[in-house]
């Protein structure tokens, strides 16, 4: 066993960290928000930062850091651990980094895409020139993807797509939709859909903003009205969409912005070391110490899942069950941390950014308390995760 990075990985991590520190504008922390495992406050999903994010992405892409996990033959470094390192450092600094293209689309194309598709798309994705949003969920197909209604009907060498997708995180600031649509309505639930790439600029696509509870526009309702998609944009086999979606699960699971956990812990520690309450430093209150230690321990636990999963992917030993635990624990921990931060900050925790009395990176706790609830419901609810772990992981009988 070895819990440490290799020397090469250490050097790499330092390089990434230094690059980001230099690269990000000095007021980045003040301008952006971020909460670990939250879906509501990713800078790269906001219109305001779209241009900067895109430029940043291309810089990162040039360094090869958007595709560290990919095989060398497709320009990658063949190291999901490095990919995880990049992600951890980026999210620590809240850098506008990462997304569907590099974690889901790229790896899926590598696994099931045609040669011509690989040639066309992989370089664009790796260079940060093609970004994607995830077109899976629909108003009546949230946890239950099998119920999706969006149809793609073959018509010559095109598919004609009609339907409605919801959430569409970042649809308004990305280039393409990574779409799952029903191609065979007669087939049983899971043999009926197909993955395809759809250019956001195709006529018939209507992207309407959804404001989240933080007042940020990161989600969208997207309507497809006779949208024509060339056949060559189909990813993998037709009617194998559900299986291809599952393939990417292992890559997807690691997108949680791991570094944000480390960051928020550091900020809390700094805060209680600096802040007096009733004439006593908060850090000297045994209750505060107990709470922070409890969080620190849980963060260490999810870090252990994180690195193990990245390492296992490199070994070809990915465990869906353990990755699900990572998602489950991480998102639930995010809520716990937000609550704990509020308990420690007291009345000051409720102040929003911009207030002179707002502590902890200018209103962060208050943002976190809102954003944190998105984690356990997004990308597979905690309930669904628990089902999966029990049934697929532990072999318990289905209902």
């Amino acid at each position, binding site marked *: 066993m070895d819990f440490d990075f290799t020397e090469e990985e250490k050097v790499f991590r330092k390089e990434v960290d230094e690059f980001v520190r230099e690269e990000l504008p000095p007021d980045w922390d003040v301008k952006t928000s971020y909460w670990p495992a939250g879906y509501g406050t990713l800078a790269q999903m906001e219109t305001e930062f779209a241009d900067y994010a895109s430029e940043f992405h291309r810089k990162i892409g040039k360094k090869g850091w958007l595709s560290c996990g990919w095989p060398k033959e497709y320009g990658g470094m063949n190291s999901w651990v490095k990919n995880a390192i990049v992600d951890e450092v980026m999210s620590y600094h809240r850098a506008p980094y990462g997304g569907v293209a590099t974690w889901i689309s790229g790896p899926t194309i590598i696994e099931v895409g045609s040669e011509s598709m690989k040639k066309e798309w992989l370089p664009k994705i790796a260079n940060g020139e093609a970004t994607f949003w995830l077109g899976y969920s629909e108003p009546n197909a949230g946890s239950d993807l099998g119920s999706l209604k969006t149809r793609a009907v073959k018509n010559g060498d095109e598919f004609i797509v009609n339907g409605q997708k919801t959430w569409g995180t970042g649809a308004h600031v990305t280039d393409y939709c990574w779409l799952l649509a029903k191609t065979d309505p007669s087939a049983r639930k899971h043999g009926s859909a197909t993955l395809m790439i759809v250019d956001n600029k195709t006529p018939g696509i209507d992207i309407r903003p959804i404001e989240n509870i933080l007042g940020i526009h990161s989600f969208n309702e997207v309507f497809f009205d006779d949208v024509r998609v060339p056949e060559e944009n189909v990813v993998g086999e037709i009617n194998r969409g559900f299986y291809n979606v599952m393939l990417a699960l292992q890559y997807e699971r690691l997108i949680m912005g791991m570094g944000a956990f480390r960051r928020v812990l550091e900020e809390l520690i700094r805060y209680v070391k600096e802040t007096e*309450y*009733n004439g006593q430093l908060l850090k000297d209150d045994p209750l505060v110490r107990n709470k922070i230690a409890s969080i620190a321990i849980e963060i260490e636990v999810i870090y252990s899942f994180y690195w193990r999963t990245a390492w296992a992917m490199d070994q070809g030993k990915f465990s869906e069950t353990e990755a699900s635990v990572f998602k489950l624990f991480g998102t639930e921990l995010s809520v716990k941390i937000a609550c704990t931060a509020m308990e420690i900050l007291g009345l000051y*925790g409720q102040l929003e950014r911009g207030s002179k*009395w707002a502590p902890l990176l200018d209103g962060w706790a*208050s943002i976190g*308390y*809102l954003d944190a609830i*998105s984690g356990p419901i997004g990308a597979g609810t905690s309930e669904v995760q628990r089902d999966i772990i029990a049934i697929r992981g532990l072999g318990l009988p289905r209902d």
Partner: protein
Amino acid sequence: MNFELSEEQKMLKKTAHDFLAKKYPKDLVKKLEESHKGYSQELWKEMAELGWMALVFPEEYDGIDGSFLDLVILLEEMGYNICPSPFFSTVILGGLPILMAANEEQKKELLPRIAMGELIITLALTEPNNGLEAKSVQVKATPSNGEYVIKGTKLFVSDAHVADYILCAVRTEDASDLERGITVFLVQAKSPGVQCTLLKTLARDKQCEVIFDDVHVPKENIVGTKGQGWPIIKHTLEKAAVARSAQMVGGAQAVIDMALSYSKARVQFDRPIGSFQAVQHHFTNMWADIIGSRNLVYKAAWKISEGGLAGLESAMAKARVGEAYRRVTILGHQIFGGIGFTKEHDMHLYHRLSMAGDLSFGNVDFQREMVATELGL
């Protein structure tokens, strides 16, 4: 023992419920929360006409002689529907301490106007980096020519930006017993030197920073006796904790009601999500949390109504509700899924208020510490 509301209380509850549902649709609630003033003067008048501001005050001050428990029933409905207004500040933080401690002249002057909805009053207590204990009151008032001069900053003062008067707890002498030497002043909000800035808070609940920059207050404006203000504050905090708890229980009830309807209608995996055992157990936990908390709130309110000391009951209720309401809104969000994470939905209003409610008048840990003390630890 009798654990049922009286017929009058049931009627009050129903009237309040229906009025609020009709007059405060969620669109308006959201608009008011985002507005600077934070309330509708028109609806404020209607509430006054319903006698709500008069409810808890004696008839001799134009009140209608209701009990604190009656007030709590009304507040529960205000929490259920959400009713942005300076009602809480004016009646609980302003009116009750005046009723408790002011002299007859002050009462005659102020209470009828409160009861009529003509005055907005609030209480300035919390100071930067300090808590809710006697030792936390450090802003000073110094005597000068038959007046007092207040200098210092108070934080999280509800509705101060629209208030006519601010009750301000300050230190008028340095006694070794920190519970002595605190005096409550009635300060005109428009007095020179009073600077009021609205704080932008999680629940947009109109809390202010109030800077008292050499504010002169005549000594006639002392409420109660000079130097003996702490018991007034302490009992006001006790009542405020119970009153806030009632709003919170109401809010939690609204969340479970919304979530129950949704979970019976929303179908995933070919069945209503409310038929999943995991979801059912969430509901059991929410419901049990709510009824358990409500029992404690009513008990504390009843104790206060009976005129007894309710330090223990109030702290227990507030601590319990603080936990419970947060748990309930978090589970509520879990049931609503993505749709509840949108601004358009109503869930987040309650989620915000669950935390704001917990933070106000002493959060869970503060109240547990109070409970420990009351238990003789």
